[in-house]
Structures are given as structure tokens and as C-alpha cells.
């Protein structure tokens, strides 16, 4: 949890090297799940990775839905922040943040502690339930 640095030894990596966190989210990026769902928070020997982005281009920005592979299961998720600098006046996060979501748009967790950009409020209709469980906004 928190800012994961590469020196933290993960059991699956003893001598291999890994690339730095990807800037925008596309296939095979490792993401960080920020809600308090059980699926996102239980430790597993592989980090959650994106396997598909529901977008015309394969690059996911804030507010896009993606498919995650967590603990051997497929789960949809919503991107709430990425490392790539976006338009000016929008926040840029230090990690690629994601909130787990069901197929109909209901969030899996019950609380989101990390700050969420205000831009998501533009699509109030689709993400109203996710915005309702968010605590901080940036």
C-alpha cells in the first residue's frame, strides 16, 4: 500500500527487474486498487494488471473503464488517476489508481480514501455511485 518502491521485495521477484510504472494505462500496466474491497486489498503474489481498455485507442485516461486481472479473476475497473500529465489544471497522481467496479457500474468497495479528480463529476450519470463512496476530491 502507499507508494510502492521497487526495493520492496516481492516474493515473485528475486533477481528480475521491472520497468517503472507506466504513465497512462494500457494493456499489461500494473495498477493500484484504491478502494477498500477485499479483492483489491488481499495480498497476492502477482500485482493487478490491466488486460483490456474499453476505448477506441488502447490507452486509458481518467474516467475510462478497463478490465483487470486480479487474483486469477477478471474484473472491470474505473481509472481514477494516472501518472501521465493531463490537461493543465487537472491533477496528476504519483501512481496509477483504479477503483473496482461491477458490469453495471456498481463499485465493489465501500470507501475510497485517496483523492479523486473533480472531472469525474462531469459524468455524474455513469459514476454517481463511485463518486458517492469517495471521500476526498482534488
Amino acid at each position, binding site marked *: 500500500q502507499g507508494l510502492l518502491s521497487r526495493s520492496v521485495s516481492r516474493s515473485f521477484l528475486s533477481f528480475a527487474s521491472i520497468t517503472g510504472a507506466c504513465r497512462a494505462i494500457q494493456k499489461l500496466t500494473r495498477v493500484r486498487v484504491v478502494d477498500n474491497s477485499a479483492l483489491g486489498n488481499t495480498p497476492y503474489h502477482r500485482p493487478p494488471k490491466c488486460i483490456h481498455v474499453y476505448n477506441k485507442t488502447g490507452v486509458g485516461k481518467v474516467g475510462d473503464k478497463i478490465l483487470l486481472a486480479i487474483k486469477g479473476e477478471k474484473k472491470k475497473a474505473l481509472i481514477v488517476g494516472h501518472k501521465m500529465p493531463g490537461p493543465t*489544471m487537472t491533477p496528476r497522481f504519483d501512481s496509477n489508481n483504479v477503483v473496482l467496479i461491477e458490469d453495471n457500474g456498481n463499485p465493489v468497495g465501500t470507501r475510497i480514501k*485517496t*483523492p479523486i479528480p473533480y472531472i469525474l463529476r462531469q459524468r455524474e450519470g455513469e459514476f454517481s455511485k463511485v463518486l458517492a463512496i469517495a471521500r*476526498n476530491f*482534488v
Partner: protein
Amino acid sequence: CRISSDGKPAKFQPPPKPVIIDKQKQREERRFLSPEFIPPRGRTDPLKFYIERKDMIQRRKVFNIPEFYVGHVLAVTTADPYANEKTNRFVGICIQRGGKGLGATFVLRNVIEDQGVEICYELYNPRIQAIEVLKLEKRLDDNLMYLRDALPEYSTFDVNMKPVSHLDHEEVPVNKLQVRMKPKPWSKRWERPKYNIKGIKFELPENKMKEAQKWSQPWLEFDMLREYDTSKIEDKIWHEVSEELKK
């Protein structure tokens, strides 16, 4: 009429000398010209910069942009249609000031709930409603991008911080803080002399520091073609801007 209680004439006490505080002199001694006024080196027509400066001064008359350097802690309130109460307040340390003219930007960084957030604001964007300087503090470097690889405690600032009052109108205090970093790898190799960073406490072994010096380019400071002397341009522009702002 000096009537003392004794009845004798009181001793002559000269009136206190008036203390003349020449405020104009004090202000002129410290000139600050925002770096975005200085035109970059190039072959563009100076008329373009003149028109841009007029627009910038026009905006500054309406909205006060305080003097700030990299390393200051600022609080910016912007108008946001998607926020409740339509305003969005962000507090952070300024890590970089970029851009020239009307597109001048500054990046504020803060760590909220263990998540590092950076926002790049445009100085002359009409959505900005207020900029307050919470803490005046210059750092040893011009660019604090290494804070991304430093321990998060150096980038956390309380959102409800009270503005620290700046007493002297003369000097901006320089904070000689040496920042401790997270273990390597970093996003950029900050130990290399290209970045010329003085504000990090490198805890790397000696051989790594020596290896980093291999990339030093000591001839760069003597390169005459790269020289850009801005002192005269700055003087002219400072006089122009201060006269316009006084009107």
C-alpha cells in the same frame, strides 16, 4: 508652557527626531520581475512580446499575482464547475515554474492521504480566483522535481495551514534543507551533474558518485554561444511593468 511640579523651570528636553523611512528606496532595492516576462532567446519579433506583456499587465491589474519562487507553499483556489461550491482549493509546494508569456505555468505538489498529487496551474488562466502564499521559502535549486523520489514527508503540507507572516520586505529566506531520498531507482538520475542539484543528501557510495561525474560537461559554462545575458532586458522590462502597474 512647561510648568513642573516643583515650580522650578523644567530641564529642556529636545523633541524626538523624526525617523524618515524612505519606503520608495526600500522597495527599489529589491526588484522582482516574474520570470515569465523575460522573453526567450530567439528570432521572434519583439512586438509579439510587447503585446503579450500588455495582456499580462492587464490581467495583473485585475487579479493580484503575488511574488513567489520555487519552494514556496501556495494555496490556489480555482473555479470548477464540477466541484460543490464551484471552487476548488489546492495547497502545495511549488516545484517548477515554466513557460514564458501568457502560458506561464507552475506545478504544485502535495501528498494527500499517502497519495502524491501534482497540479500544473497556468498563472494567467481566468479560472484562478486567488493565489495565497502560505510560506515564503526559497530552496537551493530552481527545480524541485526530485521531490517525487524523496520520502513523502518532504512533500506533505497541511491543507489548513495558516499563512506564515513574512516580516522583512527585504529578503526571501533560503531553506538549505538536504532532502533524503527513497532507495534507488529514481525517475531521473539526480546524482548526475547535468541536473546540478544541491538540495539532496546523497547517501550513495563514493564510487557511484564518481561514476556520475563521468557525465559532467565542464566546458558548458564557458560556452559563449550559450550565453544569454538578460540583465539589460530585465531592467527595461521591469521599468515598463512597474510604471504600468502603478497607473
